[in-house]
C-alpha cells in the first residue's frame, strides 16, 4: 500500500510540541507512514521525538484563522507576524499520554490531522508497523514465541499418565481460536473431541490449562455448552468432564456469568451444565463484566483521572462511578475462589463464561499466579501470557483497537488484558517479594498491547497470526523483553521465590487505584519512579556488600 497518498503535508517547520514533564519545544514535524517525527535543533544538540501513529487513540483539532481580523486590529496587530492562521492538534494516546502540537498554517494543520486520522486507524494487519520494524540488534531468524504446546506438555511429566496432547486441531478446523495442540484427558479420543467441540461455542471444548502438582487437581477452561432452550445434551461432553474428575468424585464449574445471565444465554442457543446431566459437578456463578461495560468503565476512570477539579468528593464519586475497582475486586475474588477450590478443597475446576476468551482467561491466569510459583518469575509470567492469552485465543486486535480516549463507536473493544495487568499489580503490591517481574514490565505490556513495534499482540488468534505471517515477518516482544539488556529493568530487585500460594486480600481497603498506570503522566509518577530506581540501587548496593 502507498502511505504517501494519505500524506499531503509531510513536513512543517516551527511547530511547538507540548507534552508532560517537558517544557514546550519548537521544531520540525514530519509525518511518515507509521510515525510522527518531531525534531528540534537547539544549538549543537538535537532532539528527536518519535510517536507511533498506532498509539494515537483520538485526535482533536482547532484552527484559528485570524487573517480576517488583522485589519480590525491593525493598530495593535502590527508587531505580530503577518501569517496568523494556525492550528492546534491535541493527540490523546492509547498509553494515556496527551500531547499538543501548535502548527502554523491552517492548511498544513488540517492536512496533518487528516493523515494522522487515517494512518492511526489502519486495520489491515500486514500494513502495520511491526511488519516494517527492522532494528539492527534483532534478526527475523530469532525464535518467535517462548514455547510451544508440545514443549509445555513435555515439561510436565507428572501429568502425562492421565493427560495427553491432542493434535485434533492441527489445521484449526475443530476450533479456530485454539492452538494446534491442546491437553485433554488420556481416555478421550480425538473423535470425541470433535463432537464436544460442536457442543461448545466457537468449538472451544474443555482443555487443561493448569495442573496443580501438590494434589494432581487441574484447571480446565472452555466456552459455554450449547444446550439451548431445549436443554440439549451431549454425551461426549459429559464423558470428557467425567474423565477430568475421574477418581476424585467432585468438580467445580465456575461460570463467570450470573445465574440469570446463564439462564438467559439458553434463549440464544448457549447455556450451562445442568445438575441433572453433570451430577458430579457443582456450579458456582460469579458475574464478571466484559465487553462494552468494561470498556466504558475504563473510559470513565481515565476521564476521572484527568479531571483536575479540586473536590475530593467529586473525585471519589467519579472513581466509584467508573466501577473499575469493582471489576478488579470481582476478578481477584473469583480467581481466589478458583484457587481455593483447587488448593484447599482439592477439587478440579472448569471455568467458562460465554465465549471463554475474556473473563475466563482473566480468572484462570490470576488463579495460576496465586497457586503456581513458576508463573511468578519473569520468564514464567510471559510464558503464562503466551499460553493463556495469545495461544488461548484472546482476540487482542478486536479488544485493543481503541483505548479510553477514542470517540469512535465501540465495537468489540474491551480492556480485559489491562484489567488482568491491574489485578497482577494488586497481587504484586500485596506480595512485593513474591513476583520476579516489576511494575515497569506491567506498564510496558499495557502500552505494547495497544501499539507496538512488535508483532506479538497482532491478530485475534494463533491461526490468524500464522496466516498473516506474523511469526516470520515481525519480531517477538516476549523474546525481546527477556534479552539480557532488558531483563534487568523488568525484574523485581526484591524477588524472593516462595513455593506458597499467595492469597490476596480482597477487602476494598486492600485494593488501590493503579497510580503507576492511570496517573502515569502526572508529577506523582515521577517521584514514584525515582523511588523505584533508588530501591533498585539500594538492593544492588546491599547485595554487593554482603
Amino acid at each position, binding site marked *: 500500500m502507498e502511505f504517501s497518498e494519505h500524506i499531503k503535508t509531510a513536513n512543517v517547520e516551527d511547530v511547538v510540541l507540548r507534552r508532560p514533564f517537558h517544557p514546550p519545544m519548537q521544531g520540525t514535524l514530519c509525518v511518515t507512514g507509521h510515525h510522527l517525527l518531531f525534531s528540534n535543533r537547539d544549538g549543537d544538540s538535537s532532539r528527536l521525538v518519535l510517536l507511533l501513529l498506532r498509539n494515537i487513540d483520538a485526535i482533536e483539532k482547532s484552527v484559528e484563522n485570524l487573517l480576517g481580523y488583522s485589519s480590525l486590529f491593525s493598530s495593535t496587530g502590527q508587531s505580530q507576524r503577518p501569517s496568523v492562521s494556525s492550528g492546534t492538534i491535541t493527540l490523546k494516546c492509547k498509553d494515556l499520554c496527551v500531547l499538543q502540537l501548535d502548527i502554523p498554517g491552517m492548511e498544513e494543520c488540517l492536512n496533518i490531522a487528516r493523515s494522522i486520522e487515517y494512518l492511526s486507524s489502519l486495520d489491515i494487519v500486514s500494513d502495520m508497523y511491526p511488519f516494517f520494524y527492522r532494528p539492527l540488534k534483532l534478526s527475523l531468524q530469532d525464535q518467535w514465541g517462548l514455547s510451544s504446546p508440545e514443549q509445555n506438555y513435555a515439561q510436565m511429566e507428572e501429568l502425562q499418565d492421565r493427560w495427553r496432547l491432542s493434535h485434533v486441531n492441527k489445521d484449526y478446523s475443530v476450533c479456530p481460536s485454539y492452538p494446534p495442540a491442546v491437553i485433554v484427558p488420556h481416555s478421550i479420543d480425538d473423535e470425541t473431541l470433535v463432537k464436544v467441540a460442536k457442543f461448545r461455542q466457537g468449538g472451544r471444548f474443555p482443555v487443561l490449562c493448569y495442573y496443580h502438582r501438590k494434589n494432581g487437581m487441574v484447571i480446565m477452561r472452555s466456552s459455554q455448552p450449547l444446550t439451548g432452550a431445549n436443554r440439549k445434551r451431549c454425551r461426549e461432553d459429559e464423558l470428557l468432564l467425567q474423565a477430568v474428575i475421574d477418581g476424585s468424585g467432585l468438580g467445580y464449574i465456575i461460570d463467570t456469568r450470573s445465574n440469570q445471565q446463564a439462564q438467559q444465554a439458553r434463549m440464544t442457543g448457549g447455556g450451562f451444565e445442568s445438575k441433572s446431566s453433570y451430577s458430579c459437578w457443582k456450579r458456582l456463578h460469579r458475574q464478571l463484566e466484559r465487553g462494552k461495560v468494561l470498556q466504558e468503565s475504563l473510559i470513565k476512570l481515565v476521564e476521572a483521572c484527568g479531571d483536575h477539579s*479540586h473536590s475530593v468528593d467529586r473525585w471519589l464519586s467519579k472513581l*466509584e462511578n467508573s466501577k473499575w475497582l469493582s471489576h478488579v475486586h470481582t476478578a481477584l475474588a473469583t480467581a481466589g475462589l478458583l484457587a481455593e477450590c483447587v488448593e484447599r478443597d482439592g477439587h478440579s475446576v472448569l471455568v467458562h463464561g460465554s465465549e471463554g476468551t475474556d473473563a475466563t482467561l482473566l480468572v484462570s491466569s490470576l488463579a495460576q499466579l496465586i497457586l503456581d510459583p513458576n508463573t511468578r518469575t519473569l520468564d514464567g509470567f510471559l510464558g503464562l501470557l503466551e499460553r493463556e492469552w495469545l495461544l488461548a485465543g484472546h482476540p487482542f486486535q478486536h479488544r485493543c483497537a481503541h483505548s479510553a480516549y477514542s470517540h469512535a463507536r465501540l465495537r468489540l473493544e474491551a480492556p480485559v488484558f489491562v484489567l488482568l495487568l491491574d489485578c497482577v499489580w494488586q497481587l504484586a503490591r500485596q506480595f512485593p517479594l513474591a513476583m520476579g517481574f516489576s511494575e515497569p514490565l506491567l506498564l510496558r505490556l499495557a502500552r505494547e498491547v495497544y501499539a507496538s513495534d512488535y508483532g506479538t499482540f497482532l491478530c485475534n488468534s494463533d491461526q490468524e497470526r500464522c496466516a498473516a505471517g506474523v511469526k516470520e515477518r515481525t519480531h517477538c516482544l516476549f523474546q525481546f523483553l527477556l534479552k539480557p539488556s532488558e531483563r534487568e529493568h523488568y525484574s523485581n530487585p526484591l524477588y524472593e521465590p516462595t513455593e506458597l500460594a499467595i492469597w490476596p486480600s480482597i*477487602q476494598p481497603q486492600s485494593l488501590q487505584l493503579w497510580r503507576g498506570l492511570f496517573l502515569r503522566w502526572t508529577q506523582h509518577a515521577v517521584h514514584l519512579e525515582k523511588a523505584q530506581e533508588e530501591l533498585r540501587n539500594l538492593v544492588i548496593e546491599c547485595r554487593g556488600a554482603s
Partner: protein
Amino acid sequence: MEHILTPKVEEVKLLDRYTAKKPAIGTLYLTATHLIFVETSCNTRKETWMLHHLIATVEKLPLTAMGCPLHISCKNFHVAHFVISSERDCQNVHQSLVRLSQPGKVEELYAFLYNPKQDEDERRNGWGFIDSAMDFKRMGLPNEFWEMTDLNKNYELCSTYHSELGIPKTASKGTVFGSAKFRSRGRIPTLSYYHKESNAAICRCSQPLSGLSARCVEDEEMLQAISRANPKSTFMYVVDTRPKLNAMANRAAGKGYENEDNYSNICFQFVGIENIHVMRNSLQKLLEVCAMKSPTMSDYLTGLENSGWLRHIKAVMDAGVFLAKAVAEDKASVLVHCSDGWDRTAQVCSLASILLDPFYRTIKGLMVLIEKEWISMGHKFTQRCGHVDGDPKEVSPVFTQFIECLWNLMEQYPCGFEYNEKYLLEIHNHVYSCQFGNFIGNCQREREEMRLYERTFSVWPFLWENRHQYRNPLHKCSLGREVLRPSTLPLNFKFWCGMYNHFDKGMQPKQSILDHLLTITQKKAEGEKKMTDLQIQLAVMDGVLADQGSPTGTPPEQTSLSPVSVSHTAENAKPLMNGAAVEEAEIELVPTAGSEKMEPVAIEN
C-alpha cells in the same frame, strides 16, 4: 485495683473482624493497666494486649447463642470483638473496663505508673533530649529582626503558651501586652518558623477580639512589627484557617478576624478548614466504613466519600501548601490563626515547616517540631485525646489529621523523609497511650503544675533509642534544602489502611518492602562495621593507630546523643500486673506469630 471485679476469664472467643473464620479461643486477663487476651487454641502462643487508656469505647451487646459479646474499640483504631460465655463475667469485665478506660483524674494515667527501671538522672536527662528553644537557634535566632523573650516566664502574658517566645525585635513590651489583650486567651502573634533564605516568617496566634468594629493599636503595631521584620516584602499574609462563615459568626460574639482596612499592607485570606466537631463526626463516619463487614467496592468508596474525611485532610494540606508557597515563593511573612490557635493553626504551621525545612523530615526533626508546635504551644492533648473522663465534645482527631497529612506527603515523596510509616504510627500510638508524660496536659503551665517532668518519662529518648526501626532506607539527603511542592489534586489523597486497619493484618500487604529493606541495609551496615573494626585492628597491630579507643567507626550522630542510654525496649514496656497475671502472661511475647500466615480474606464459597 479496686476496679477489677474479675481478673481472669477463661474460654473467651475473639472473633475475626471481617471474616467468618473460626474464632480464637483463649483467656482474658484484666490487669491494672492492660487487657490481655492469650490464645490457647493455637500452638504458637498469641497474645493481644490492649492498654486501658487506649480504649475509646467498650460496649456490651445483647446475649447471643454463642455467649455475651463485648465490643472494644481503641483510640489507635484497634477493634476487638470478644464473646464471653457467662453474662455475669461479661458484665464484670465491661464494668471494670468502663471505669479503667476513663480515669477520673490525670494521676491515674499509665505514665505515672510506668517505670522502665531507669535511674533518676537518665529520666531527667531524657526530658532535656528535645529542646524547642534550640530549634530557634538553629533557624538563626536571635538575629537583627527577631529575638527570644521571656515576657511569658510566669505565664502572665498567656497561660497556654510556652514561657519563651519569639517576637520581632521592634515590638515593645507595651505592644506585646497590648496585643495580648486583643487576642483570644492572650495568644499573641509569635514566631513559629523563620525561613533564613527569604527572611520571611510564619507566625501564629489566636483570633482578634475585633467583634463588629473594635480595633487595637498595639495589635496593629504588632503586625506592623512582624511585617517590618521582613524588610524586602511589601506585605504580609494573614491567614484565617476557618471557613469564612464560622469566622463571621465569631464576630457577633466579640471575636472575629482582621479588618484589612485597619492593618496596613496585609493580605487577608480564609482557607476553610472545618472545626473540631465536624472532624470528630467525620472520623466517626470513616470508622463506620472501616467496620463494614464484606462491603462491596461501591459501598466502600461511597462510604469514604460520605465520611468527608479525605476532604478534610486535603483542606489541611492545601493550607499548609499555601503557607509554604507564601514564604518560599512570595517571600512574604504569614500570620496564621483559627479561633484559639491551638488546633488548625498547629496543623497548618507544622505542615508548612515540614514542606519548607528538610530538618523536620528527619527523625529528630519531627520530635522537635511536635514539641515546638504542639506541646509547647498549647495543643490541648488531654482534652483532644480524651485522656481523662471529660467533655466528649472536646475530643477531636486534630493530631491524627496532622500525622495523616504527613503520611500523604511521604507517599508522594518516598525518598524525601528520613523516617518511615512505623514512626508516625508509633508517635500516634504514644500520643494516646499516655505511657509517657509528653502528651499529658493541655499546656506547658499545666505540665509544670502536674510535675510531669519529675514523675514521668519522656517518649523522645525511647523513640531515639529505637530509631533504626523508624528509618526510611530510601531516604535521600541529597534533596538538600529543597522545598516540597506536593500535588494536592484529590486523586493524591488515599485512605490510610496502615492506620485505620493497622490491626487487621489480613488487609495489609502480606510482605513488607520496608521491613525487607531495613533488614538488608542493617545487614550491610553490620558487615561494614565489622570491616572497619577489622581494619582498625589491623592498623593497631601495624602500629599505624596508637589508640584503640578513637571514635573512627562511630557515626557522628551517636556522638551527639546525650548520655541517655535508655535500655528499655518494647518488652520492657510491660505493664504492672497482679501476681497471677504476670505468671501467666510473661511468657515470650509473640504478638504477630500466626498472623503472618498467608490466608485469603473473605473469599466466599
